[in-house]
């Protein structure tokens, strides 16, 4: 019984997060401006981090936790660097 419940919950959650990732990437590709793309990348990072946490519940493996922590750190650094670039890049111009 609990296997069935958990299986369906995990599957639905993974599908929902996959759709969320697709929506974020579509916005990242469409833009229209650079700040939209950066925010799209950030949303994609957060969604994939959550996706990996759900993967961890699916497999029962705590290794996924470390991967998602690394993705979160990388996403934060990338977004901060890109946001800085958006400001500085225009200053020089």
């Amino acid at each position, binding site marked *: 019984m609990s296997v069935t419940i958990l299986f369906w919950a995990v599957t639905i*959650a993974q599908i*929902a997060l996959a759709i*969320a990732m697709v929506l974020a990437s579509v*916005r990242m590709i469409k833009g229209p401006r650079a*700040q939209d793309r950066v*925010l799209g990348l950030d949303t994609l990072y957060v969604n994939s*981090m*959550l996706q990996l946490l759900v993967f961890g519940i699916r497999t029962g493996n705590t290794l996924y936790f470390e991967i998602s922590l690394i993705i979160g750190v990388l996403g934060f650094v990338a977004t901060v660097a890109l946001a800085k670039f958006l400001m500085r890049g225009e200053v020089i111009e």
Partner: protein
Amino acid sequence: MNHAAHLPLWAALLVAIFLLIGAGLALIGSFGFYRLRNFYDRIHAPTLGTSWGTAAIVMASMICFSVLQSRLVLHELLIGVFVTVTTPVTLMLLGRAALYRDRSEGNPEVPAISTPKGRLDKPQLTKESESVPHNSKNMND
């Protein structure tokens, strides 16, 4: 998913509910992010996923592994703390960068650089929102 057979029913239900709430919030946030019309509206949508979306999934993971390993597994809390601390930084930097870019382009949608000091005694709140005419009906199309 064989490990789930060791999970008692109440734990499975709790994990399932938290997972669905978290994933649902993340999906709604990304949907709003995809759908909304202007950048300053879009900046609000992903916070759904980063606030309670992340918190719910972290809680689901914590419950699942704590029950499975029959000890308190709390390391997922780190992800929650990390996301809560970092999201404001990224969003503030992005908001400021966007404002800076819009101002340097002379975009009429954003408020001008600053109001003179004397006018601050009576805070002028209506000015900005009135000066954003096509902002007002955002999701009409």
